[in-house]
Structures are given as structure tokens and as C-alpha cells.
């Protein structure tokens, strides 16, 4: 089972728009390999307010802190461009 983190993070992007690294708890986590973007739809009609998007942007990637063992993470990008570290899959 993954750990739910839900913490705001700063993410460094490549010129192509892929995450290269993110800073969580003051430590830089470097992305290893090709991260995959996934857009998951929402049941927006069940929520309050009129949505501007019908999906949420998630990036699943492998990253490691320094030389430590790599973990799999889910990063979520909000419509305002801010990032949240959603899950740590271990």
C-alpha cells in the first residue's frame, strides 16, 4: 500500500515539460528514467462549483534522494501549476 503524503513540493521541469526533480522535506529527489503523465477524470458534477477541468494531472515517476534506494511517487499538478506529492509507493 502506498503512503499518502499530500505535501506541496517544488518541481524542476525539463525543456519538454517533464519533471526532472522535486524538493520534498528540503531534500532534492532526482527523477530516474522516463516519467509518465496520467490524466484521471473526475466526477465533477458531484462537486461544488463549475469546473475548469474534468481531469487531474498525475505524474508517476521513480526518484531517489541522493544515492538512496529509489521510490515510486505520484506527483499531482493543480490547474494553477502548483505541485503536490500525492503518494509514495515505496
Amino acid at each position, binding site marked *: 500500500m502506498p503512503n499518502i503524503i499530500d505535501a506541496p513540493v517544488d518541481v524542476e521541469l525539463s525543456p*519538454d*515539460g*517533464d519533471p526532472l526533480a522535486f524538493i520534498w522535506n528540503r531534500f532534492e529527489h532526482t527523477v530516474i528514467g*522516463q516519467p*509518465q*503523465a*496520467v*490524466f*484521471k*477524470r473526475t*466526477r*465533477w*458534477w*458531484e462537486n*461544488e*462549483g*463549475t*469546473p*475548469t*477541468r*474534468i*481531469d487531474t494531472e498525475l505524474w508517476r515517476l521513480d526518484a531517489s534522494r541522493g544515492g538512496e534506494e529509489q521510490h515510486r511517487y505520484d506527483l499531482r499538478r493543480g490547474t494553477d501549476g502548483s505541485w503536490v506529492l500525492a503518494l509514495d509507493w515505496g
Partner: protein
Amino acid sequence: MTSAPGMDFAHLHVASAYSTHYGVTLPAALAEQAAAQGASFLAITDRDGLYGAVKHVRACVAEGIRPGLGAELAVHDDECRALGRVVVLAHGHTNGRGYAALCRAVSAAHAVSDAQASSAAPSISRAQLADLAGLASLTVLLGPDSDVGLAVARRDNTDAAARLAHWQRALPADAVVLEIVCHLAESGTVGSVTPATRMLALAENANLPAVLSNAVRYGTPEEAVTADLADAARFLLPLAELETPQTNGQAWLKPAGAMRQVARMVVDAGLHDAGALERLLRHTEQLADRCSLDPEHDIGLGHPRMPEARIIGVTGDPVTELWRRATSGIADLYSASGSRAVEAAHAQLAHEMKTVEHLGFASYFLTVSRVADIIRGMGIRIQARGSGVGSVLNYALHTSSVDPISNGLLFERFLSPERQTLPDIDIDVESARRHDIYREVFRAFGSDRVSLMSMTNAYRGRGAVRDAGLALGLPDAQINVIAKQMWRFNARDFRRALEEKPELEALATEVRESQQLDLLVDLTAKLDRLPRHISVHPCGVILSDASLLDRTPVQASGMGLPMSQYDKHDMDPMGLIKLDILGVRMQSAMAHAVEEHHRLTGESIDLDRVPLDDPKTYELIRSTRTLGIFQIESPGQMELVGKLQPEVFNDLTVEISLFRPGPMKNNMPLKYLQARHGEVAPDYIHPRFEPILRETNGVVIFHEQVMRLFDELTGCGLGKADVFRRHLGKPEQLPQIEEYLREHALARGFSDKVIDQIWTVLAGFGSFGFAKAHGAAFALPTYQSAWLKTHHPAAFLSGLLTHDPGMWPKDLIVAEARVLGVPVLPLDVQSSALDYRVEDLADGSQGIRLALPELVGSTEAERARIARHQPFGSLQDFRDRVHPRRRTFEALARVGALDTFIGYDRTRRHELLAHIQSLRGTAVVIRADQLAFEVELPVPRYSGDRAGAITSLELRGRTQTDLELLDLNLAVGTHQMTRFHALFKELGVTPASELGNLPGGTEVLLAGVRRATNTPPMRGGRRVVFISLDDGTGPVANVVFFHDAQERVGGQVFQTNYMLVRGRTRRSGARGVSVTGENLWNLFDVARQVKERHAVERATAEEAASAAAYAAEVAAQAAAQSSPRTLGTLHHLGAAHSA
């Protein structure tokens, strides 16, 4: 043409909003976005058609990018097995071959489905697609929705490869390309990278090119919400219940960077060689190059194509032929008016022909005149309308029947070297014969040259709120209540309307309290204006040469004839000639009147030759009893006619032209009326303007006057003057026009002061005003219908009742007939026909017999049998030959249509009905021509003891009016308001017929049933509501509710149908009167309250009486004890009772 890699991405698969209930972004917005993203190419590939194609090509031209065209089509194989959906793209720079093949492919897809069943979705056979793709005309993209893509999604690679091989064998080499689509969906769902990367591998293995697309459904990610609504509307299911909602919101028109990112993820997800990514993008770009269409050479944009000369019966040069026909027409039409008139007509003809020759439109005029000849040859009434009426050429060719010279109309308003768009001639015909005309035109010109035009119906308030409500899963009843209130405002402005409109206040409160309704308001606004479905245009017929079907895709219209997928906005750019053949019910009504007159008297009336100066006709018009008369029967028109008091034909033209949104907003009616009635002196500003403005007493009303003023001021010529006139509506153009006008007018001898004055008038005119050609063309049927109403009221009203041409419900026409002394006779199976017929009555007057189709729930076959077998000898005979269904049989008996079988003794109708209801039998299918025996089936006369047992309860307590309203929706016996007349008398309600006798400013109570509601355009923009009330005493009473009264009355102003109104009379002109409404009550509530009050009063009176009686008794006892004076006490008692 191609820009640097990475900067540009060519979208090859894009649905526009014209893919109804699927795409949600209009072509212009897509093209603009693509250009802003740096793209140099954009294709539109709408579902099942090229609905948005012309708009897309024009938008691309405007944005400076290359257009591509295609269609997303379903394909089937030889055994009719579905092969999924593919994208068919036309190749460019093929001199139109690719575009023609695409048009034919779309038409073929529709032809198959039309041939099978109307419910079947369009689909093209692969064999046919292969034929059309020959000569390198088309590319077929096999994407995720194709049979190959679906096999890949099933992970059945063997099947996918086999199916792909089949496509390669069936289609020409190079015609098949694989389409990679990835919406970055979650793995395991549609649109994830896995099937996309496997599709890419399939292409590599088969050595076929693959291209990347985004299967676009909307421009921006925000619009994904709207696409969700479109899905709900397409499947008719709430969003929560959709089986296959869009997988996420990524089907937007992504810019190059985002598409490259998608490509990278697809390539990275599989085992592909190092060059795979660049190869995919390169192939995409190469295909875009191949599919770039040249708007002119491929699509034929801007090239008019007229029917071939031989088709319009011309052997030689069309220009010579046109001259010949026009010259002989002038001799025919003008010689009676003298040689000077003939000369003037010839001079005008020469002038017009110069322009026609210069523009190369001779064939056009011959084509239109040929169609007019066809229609006239069928014996159908025809009347040209629109600016074409300003042309002597059209008059001489008998296309139009209004003389442009004596009416002061201008050719240049219609056509000039400065006005290069294809001319537009509208033809009004009898509405009941319109389809016959279409079929005949198809036959005469050939179905490869003719097509009906389509129109795109866009979402408006009610449709939008219904579909948004459906998507949210709101209960039908709730949506209905809201939809009923979506009235006369744009759905886009729903939120603002909720804040501003007093009648929406209850809804506004609900919205504030419900999160779901709040969402509904936003979603409704999103749907507003989006194309919803296409249907056949009510009058547009496209005429062209034999290349028509290479230039427009067609599909079957509701009436079976082929219909182009292009709408009226696409006609001129595509060089397609469109003729508006509009069915006008008034023309049918007048034709019916003329026929009835002929049937009864043998006399033929030629309406087009009726003199236009009949005093009695104008007298009727001036009396404002214009109900039923073309164009001038609305409450507002009645009022204006009353003020204007027309005396000659031109007054009618002026009247009709004044009653238009533009002139109303510009306060022209008031200015004109003041000058007409001598309240102010006409101001012509300058003697040289007087000839131009004399006919309207110095007020500029007509476009033609503006054109003449420009010409007089600047000498620019009428053609250029019309360009100026059209630019007056554009504020940014005004300074340039003013500068030009000042310079030239000064040189032509006008003073600065005069120029200042006239410029103020012209600039203020803006785009307001009306073409006199339109006004004159409308005035003719106005006059003709008024003439019929004056001289042949029974025949005319029977025409109105049969064809229902106007704004008023039939009840009111019936009431008008009653007032005119023409009774409408009840339904009778012996004499009622399929239409309303005039009957000569015993007293020498005429009546109108109710028509059979009015019987609610009767079938066409039953009615046809009644009409065919009339008259009937007995009830048995009627039953045997008509074989009515039970429901029809009983309804006929109830309304009295079978009274003939009981000797027209109304009191016995309950016996007849009971008898029919008691009949038992089994249902049988009967042939139309079945024989029957003539035997007696007498209605038993029940009497004596049994009388109570057999009375049909259905008739108990119901008046003939109730029964007629129930089974006919129309009361002809007595007026439905008659039952309230006692109440009206008690309340002091003024009858509508008495209103005209009251002075202005009198406080009155009015009551009646609502017959019409109008919110005409008003100066100042504040909404005014006109309600026409019918109380059965005469013409309608018109009540006006201004803004303050609307606030007081609230929603009732639209919702209450039976009402009591308090207001003040307002005189308008010599004859007109209307009422300014102050308050409004529901008539039933009032009736109930009065009844309750009566009950209370009765109770009080009884109480008082019994109290008095008690007192009397006491007094009597006392008196008995003292002295015997009972007489006085009795007198008291009587007084208490009467109180």
C-alpha cells in the same frame, strides 16, 4: 510552407462543433487557436459529414493557415459487417479531385443509411471508399475506433494484423495510414499509452506510415466540460450513468510542445527503434502537406456555377435570350401605361442589363425566371420578395409582380458592380404546395444539379437548459418548470437574467439555495449557441450545374429529397446559387378563398389584377379591424394602422416598413406620424432632397432614400451609395464616409449647414430602416388579403381557418367571423370537408363549415373516408362505410357531428352517445374501398322509466362549448368566455367591444382569455409586454404592461391565461385604443373569491335574518303579552331577508 520541427504540429483529426453532440468548438475558434499556437495547417474532420467545412476553410484563409478537410465515417464490408470508424482525408492540389471524392464519400455514407432505415447511422462500404480513394484522391486513417484499432485495444495482435492486411488489399496503395492517438489516460483504459504504442508497432511491422493525432473534440481543456454535456445529450443519459464517458479531458487542440510530449511517451512505452519519434512526427507533417487544400482550385471557393444553358431552355447566348425575354415582358407590362412608361422601362432595363452582363449573371436571371415559370405553370400563386423586387428585369421576366418604377424601388439595392455577392431573389409560394414545387424543380433540372439547403439549429435557452438538466440527472418535472421560464433571453445571459427579470425571482432564490441548480445555470450557458442538429432549411433550394455533387455532400432530408450539408452562410463562398422558395400560408389561404369563391359562384378572381385603389378596402384597414390581414394583424400593427390611417398603396408600404425593429428603435414611426398628420411641418432640409423625401414627409425610412441622398450629395452613383448605406451601421467606418460626403457635397453646391444637418440624419440612420423593395413586396399580399376580407369575408375566413396563416389562434378567427356575421357551423359528418368550406345558408347569407381535421384524435384515413362517402343515409350507413374507431365515433357523437341521425334534436344526443357506447364488436381491419350494406341502425328512443338509466354521463353538466373545446380545441357554438359574462357584469368589466367608446385615461377593468403575448422591440430597450385579451365581445383588447407594472405583477404576466386586468385606456390615433395594465389577477381566483364572498354574504344575511327572526320572536312574545301588532314585525323580517 513547413516551419521548423517542434514549432509546428499539424492536427489531422479534429471534430468541430458542427459534429453535433460531439465536438464543442466552432471552426473559427479552432483556426484562430491553431494559428496562435504557431500551426501552419489545420484539418477539420467532422463526424459523418462536412458540416463545418466551408466555415473552416474560410477561417483558415482569414488566419493565413492551410486548411485540410476530412470526415470521420463509419465503414462496413461487403457483408455489411461494421469496420469501425475511420478518418477520410481529401488530398489537396488535385484540382478538386480529392475534395470531390470526399464529398461523394460522405454522400455515399448517408445514401446507404437512408436506403436502409432512417434510424440507421451513416456508413460507407469499404469497396465504395476504395473506388473513391482511387487516383490518389483520399487518405484513410485507421485509428483507435477502426476495426484495426479495436483489435489492438483487445490485445489481439493477430486479428489486428489480418484486418490491416485486408484494408491494404482493398484500398489503393498509399491510401492507408495508421493513426496513433494517446490521451495519457490511466493504464488499462481507452486512450492510454499502451494501445497507442502497440498501434505504432503494428505500423512498423506492416511497413506503413503512422501519424499522430489527438482526436480533438475541443479547443481548450476548459471545454472538456462542454464535451461531457455533449456526450450526455448524445446518449440521452445523465453523466453519472454514461457507460463510456470520455476517458479524461485531454482531447483538446494541443500545441506542438504538448503533442511532442505525447509522442515521446508513446514511443518510450514500447520497443521502437531510435528514429521512431522523429519518423512519427515527420509522417504527420508529410500527410498534412498532402492534405493541404487550395481553397480556390480544390474547393472552388468563390466560383459561381450556374445551371447549363440547355437546362434552362436556352440554345444560344444567354445574354441575347435574356434581352429578348425582358423586352417582350416590358411591352406586355407597360404598354397600357403609355409610351413614356415603356420608354422609361426600356431605359431602366438597359441600365440593369449592363450590370448583369458585366457580372456575368444572365444565366442566373434565366434560371430564376425558369423556376418562376415552373411554379406558375403548376397553377400556384407566386410572389417575389426581397431586394430583387427592385429590378425591372425581374418584373419583366414575371419573376416579380411589383412594378419597381412606379413604387420608386432601386435596382442597385439588389445588384451593382459594387455589390459582388451572388444576388438573392426570394419567392413566396402557397405553403401547401411547397413540396410539390420542390419535386418539380428536381425533375426539371435533374437531381445532380439541385439540392435542398440545410440549416444548423443551434442551442437556445430551453434546449440548453433541458440538456444541461439531463446531464446532471435533474428530474424531468423540475427541468420542465425551469425550461418554461427560459423565455426571450439568451441562455448565455441566464445568470444576468436571474438577477434582472422580476418574473424569474422565485427561480433565482432556488438557484441561490441549490448547488446543483447553480451548476445548471453555468452549464446551460456553455451549451448556448452550439450547433444542435441540422435540418432542411424552410425555403432554400440550391441550383447549380452537373458538378454540384462534387462540391457539396448531400444527405436525405425529412421529406426524402437530398439536402446539402451546407447552410446559407456557405452558399455565397461556395458559388452555389440559392433560391428561397418560401411557403407562405397567407398565399395558400388566399388561394383557398379564391377557389371557394369559384366553387360557389363560378367566378374567377385574379388577385394580381385587382385594382390597388379600392376605397372600401382602405376603409376596412383604417378601422383597425385587421385581424387576419397579412402583416398588419398584430396588436402593435393594429395600433400603428389606426394612427397612420392608410389611404393609398404606398401608405401600406410605409406602414409595414415602419413596423420593424430598426425603425422602431430609431423612433421613426412617431416622427413620421407627426409629419403626416401635420403636427410638424415636413423638414426636407434642402429643396434638392424634397423629391427623395416627399413620400415619407421628410423622414428617412427606406434604404432607397438613403442611397438617393448619398447619390444626390456626392454624385457617387447608386451602386456605391448602397455600399455607403451598408457601412453606416459600422461606427468605425463613419469618419471616412463623412469626410467623403463633406468634400463632394461642398463641391456639388451644398452648404456646410445643410451638410451638417443631413449627416446627422444619415449617421443616426445607421443600419436602421428597411428596404422599400421588401415593404412594397409585403404590401401587395397585405392589400390583397384586405381586399378579400372586405369583399369576400366568408371565403377569406375559410382560407384563414384552413391554412392558419397568422399569429392568432383559430378561436379568435371564429370570433371575428361571428362579428362579421359569418357563422361558423358545427362539425357535421354530412357536410364537413377536409378543409373549411363556405356554405350558402337558407337566409341568403354565408357560413363556414368546421373542417374534419379539427376533430382531436381522428386519423387521416377516417377523415378521408368520411369525406369520400358523404352524405350518409343513416347511422348504420355511416358506421359501415366509415368504420370509425370507437374513440372517433364517440367524439363525433359528443360534439354533435352525428346529430344528423337524431334529426338535429340536441336533447337526444345523450341517447345517441349512450347507444354508441353500448355497441360491442371486435376490431377489424378494413380496406378503403370495402362495400357495405344499407340497412337501418336506428337510435332507440329511450323514454319513460328507462330514461334515467341510459343517459350518457359524459354529457351531463357540459355545454356544447365544453364539448367542442374537449374534442375540437375550438369552440364555434358560443364563446368560452360567455360563462363569465355574469361575473363580468357584476365586477363592472368593460367589454372589449366597448373599449373604443371610452376617452383616454379612463380606469377600466378588462377580462378574458389570453390570445397572444408580444414583447415588441422598443425604443429605450426596456421590455414591454403586450397581452391580447379575448372576452368574446369583439376584437381583442390589447393591454400593455410597462416595466413598473411587470414588477408588480411578476411571473403572472406570462403565466396566467385567464385574467382580470385593471388599467387605463390609452387612445392611439383616431380609431385605436389600448389599455395600459396596472394590475392583473387570475380570473379563476377572482371567480372563486366572488363565489366565496357570495357565500359569506348569504351566510351573513341568513345569520342576520335568523337574528332578526329571533328578535321578532322575542318581540312577538312580548307583544303577545302586551298588544297584537305582528304586522310590523313581519315587515321587519322581510327586510332582513332581502338584505
